[in-house]
């Protein structure tokens, strides 16, 4: 049975308000009709997030490569400019901006979750920037990774809750656990903790999200 209350809650969750009101003004709804519309909107939302996994994968792989690359350059190759590997984020920023502009142009329906995700990740982007400024002042040689790992967890945990996708929620919790463990590790091993956190919180959930979306759309 679908009561009006639940139709309302589900609808505001997955459904653009303007479409909903226009549709309701035009015709009467049985609970079954409402469910059908909500289901179609759920599929639409999932499709949208299959596009969003691009960002998780780009940033996941870039950060993973940078963390492990710095570890290898510092400890195995003994290269003094090991931190230069982080310049890899510059093309990732360019790619992200390019992709998001392209995304904005393709007219997608705005959903409540989509808007929430947008604000979440704008906020996260600014936070990463501010954190980088703080750490560049306090010194990169100190234990910087626990703070980044903490933010990885924040972004993915909230995203997972928003889209009700457990692997992201679990990934966020794993990142927080690693953020605490990393405090007890030497700087070099904090890099590996960072790589592990990004693997669990970004890369693995993004691939799972992609395969789930594929199976739903198929």
């Amino acid at each position, binding site marked *: *049975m*679908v*009561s*009006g*209350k639940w*139709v*309302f*809650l589900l609808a*505001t*969750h997955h459904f653009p308000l303007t479409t909903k*009101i226009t549709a*309701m*003004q*035009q*015709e*009467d*709804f*049985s*609970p*079954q009709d409402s469910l059908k519309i909500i289901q179609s909107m759920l599929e639409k939302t999932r499709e949208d997030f299959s596009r969003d996994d691009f960002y998780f994968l780009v940033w996941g792989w870039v950060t993973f490569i940078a963390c492990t690359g710095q570890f290898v350059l510092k400890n195995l190759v003994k290269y003094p400019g090991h931190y230069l590997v982080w310049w890899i984020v510059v093309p990732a920023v360019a790619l992200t901006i390019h992709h998001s502009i392209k995304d904005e142009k393709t007219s997608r329906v705005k959903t*409540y979750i989509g*808007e*929430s995700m*947008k*604000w*979440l990740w*704008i*906020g*996260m982007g*600014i*936070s990463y920037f*501010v*954190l980088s*400024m*703080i750490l560049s*002042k*306090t010194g990169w040689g100190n*234990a910087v990774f*626990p*703070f980044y790992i*903490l933010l990885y*967890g*924040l972004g993915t*945990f*909230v995203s997972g*809750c*928003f889209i009700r996708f457990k692997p992201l929620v679990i990934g*966020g919790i794993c990142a*927080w656990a690693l*953020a*605490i463990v990393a*405090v007890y590790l030497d700087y070099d091993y904090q890099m590996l903790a960072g790589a592990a956190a990004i693997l669990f919180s970004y890369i693995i959930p993004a691939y799972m999200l992609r395969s789930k979306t594929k199976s739903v759309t198929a």
Partner: protein
Amino acid sequence: MNEEKEPQLSGEESLKLINEMIGKAKQSYVSKGIASIVWGILIVVCSLLTWMQVQYKIDLGFDVWLLVFIAVIPQLLSSIKEKKQKTFVGHDEITMRYVWTTFGICIFILSFYSYKVYGNNTASLFMMMYGVPTFITGGIFKFKPMILGGLICWGLSVGSLYTPLATDMLFMAACGLFAWLIPGIILWNRYKKNQACNV
């Protein structure tokens, strides 16, 4: 079987139901601005007391930031009372619950860092963290005072890198004021106005 008994709603009836639900959701503890006001006052008071201790070398004999835990108790009681009275939870409220619970976890981990490793040099990091949920909440609700509050927190976080600890505490008080106290008062006034209109 039950579906047959479910009444058919006309477009107008559905809209009325949605409006009623939105009206009820607006009366929540969060959207009334009470939580925001409580936390705003708390951060302002704790920051100013810490500033006083540092500036005038006064020892109050206890950690003023423990007051945060005292404020959690009435907030928890109020939330439990509200939960019992409610017949439904709006999606807005669930979203905010995720954001602010996550913020709580992050502040806890940051406090752990502060206690364990980094000492008193974490004011900038706390201010950076204050900006995150404030900005997201403002963005999701299209509530400009909170968007601005979040941006001010981040600006002051960067600014505090160049100031001594005593000034950092004044910055932190400003964060509490702009991110929570002022937006909370605005929300409370709106709520009161709405209530007056509905009478």
